[in-house]
């Protein structure tokens, strides 16, 4: 077998291992899926009436807010899923079996790519559940079939980038506790972006930060695709650049840490 064939085969073996872990230890997955759903319900039913009126749309109220909020919540679902990635990577590194992998003639990166692919799949599970709940309480997306396809592609790219970043965080963490804390910062970013309210309503300094951090273009691209609005080229380029950049950063850190340990 060629090197590439080995890498593919080892990655699928490691993915299989991760998926089995998720099935055998479902409480983490349940928590990761549940958190964004709780956030959605909380924001729609507790704050939604008031914030919806403040959006300044023709209808206002809870329904208007559900429409505004859901795209951002899809990103929150990814963020929730990748919290778990850092934890499971850090936990895995404490296991003796990873040292065994390191003494075997395998594609070393497959240990990490197995985590990444499993985590992207978990992100999609989180987003699917969230979207289903949103639709159940009245969210009505207007995307065309091509738009849905584009949406899946964009969300896959974003979760790929964020997953590699959190794999890097998990690899850098000195303990599992640390690994569960560092990705918390990502939870904050959608709040400091356009997920919950438009950035124009924020004070200048925060607005400046909001407009230039990765989550605002992420959210705006997703919003445009969900409602079949034209996607702004700049947002699309920024989304691709941030995702690939974060993936590369996470990959570089992870690989270095994995080979060094």
């Amino acid at each position, binding site marked *: *077998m060629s090197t590439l064939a*080995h890498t593919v*085969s*080892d990655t699928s*073996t490691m993915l299989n*291992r991760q998926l*089995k*872990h998720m099935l*055998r*230890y479902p409480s983490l997955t349940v928590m990761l899926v549940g958190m964004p759903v709780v956030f959605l319900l909380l924001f729609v039913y507790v704050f939604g009436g008031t914030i919806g009126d403040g959006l300044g749309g023709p209808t206002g109220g809870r329904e208007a807010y559900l429409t505004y909020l859901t795209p951002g919540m899809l990103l929150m679902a990814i963020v929730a899923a990748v919290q778990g990635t850092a934890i499971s990577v850090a936990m895995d590194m404490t*296991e*003796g*079996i990873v*040292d*065994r*992998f*390191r*003494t*075997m*003639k*395998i594609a070393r990166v497959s240990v990490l790519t197995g985590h990444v692919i499993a985590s992207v799949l978990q992100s999609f599970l989180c987003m699917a559940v969230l979207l289903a709940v949103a639709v159940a309480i009245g969210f009505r997306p207007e995307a065309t079939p091509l738009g849905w396809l584009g949406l899946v592609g964009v969300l896959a790219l974003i979760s790929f980038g964020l997953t590699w970043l959190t794999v890097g965080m998990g690899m850098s963490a000195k303990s599992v506790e640390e690994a569960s804390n560092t990705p918390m910062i990502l939870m904050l970013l959608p709040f400091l972006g356009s997920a919950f309210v438009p950035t124009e309503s924020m004070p200048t300094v925060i607005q400046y930060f909001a407009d230039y951090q990765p989550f605002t273009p992420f959210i705006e691209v997703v919003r445009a695709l969900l409602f079949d609005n034209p996607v702004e080229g700049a947002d699309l380029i920024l989304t691709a650049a941030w995702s690939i950049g974060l993936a590369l950063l996470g990959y570089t850190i992870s690989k270095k840490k994995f080979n060094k340990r």
Partner: protein
Amino acid sequence: MTTTKTLAIEAANLTKSYGENEVLKGIDIAVPEGTIFSLLGPNGAGKTTTVNILSTLIPASGGQARVGGFDVAGQADSVRGAIGVTGQFAAVDGLLTGRENLRLMGRLNHLPKQEIRRRTEDLLERFDLVDAAKRPPATYSGGMKRRLDIAMCLMGDPKIIFLDEPTTGLDPRSRRTMWQIIRDLVKAGTTIFLTTQYLEEADELADRIAVLDGGRIVAEGTPEQLKRLIPGGHVGLRLHRADQVEHAARVLDAGSFDADQLTVQVPTDASVDSLRKILDTLDREGIEVDEFTVHTPDLDDVFLSLTGQAKADA
């Protein structure tokens, strides 16, 4: 050493330091194919560090090492293809079942599907794990975990196996089982690099032993050669009559005696011959003995005599 056999493992002037802390201070190792080599030493001697370097887990700070004919630094992947490693802590996946753990190893060794199935069932049978195959290792005893660990190691049919303290923490029965497993492996032509804290274990299994202390090999040889270096073995006698103590000590060539405690210590290599001589002498001289104990050299004795210092800090 005059051997015409090919060396499975060879290291020259291997060093490892972490900052100021020198863990290995230049060790040389030569292990011929198909033999058991034991690295004997207390905790912190550098045994695991040596295994980690030879198994490509960590780079050496200096020196050369070849395993299976490949350079551990430049040809790490080829080394990995030739070795199996069982570390001090069971390297098994806690969430997969025993059988799944073995199949995972089979897939990572890129074996054909049928071969994976065949070897998995074969290894489960051979290591007495058939009943436990459907359970995760979290439910296993220490001995079972080690057996699964070694079975996983064997899935790739390695030519050279590193066993880092394979019996530490096992009960005596599991330890015997592990010894038998190791003997069977060597019979099949595998080279074994074994680290242990127990002289008894090295004595039982190894063709050659190197004693590692403070990052240096302080003695090397066959078990017999090493034991001759170690004067720690003795027979302890407790006599019945106080007036015979001095006499007994004289005729037995005793190392020391205590007239108040009625005890006499006689240095010996604990061989049957030497014990028979002691018993014959006691008989001939009509010395009455209440208690007769044979003390064989242990690791403490090795270190006392080989390093000239008590390992008070260990």
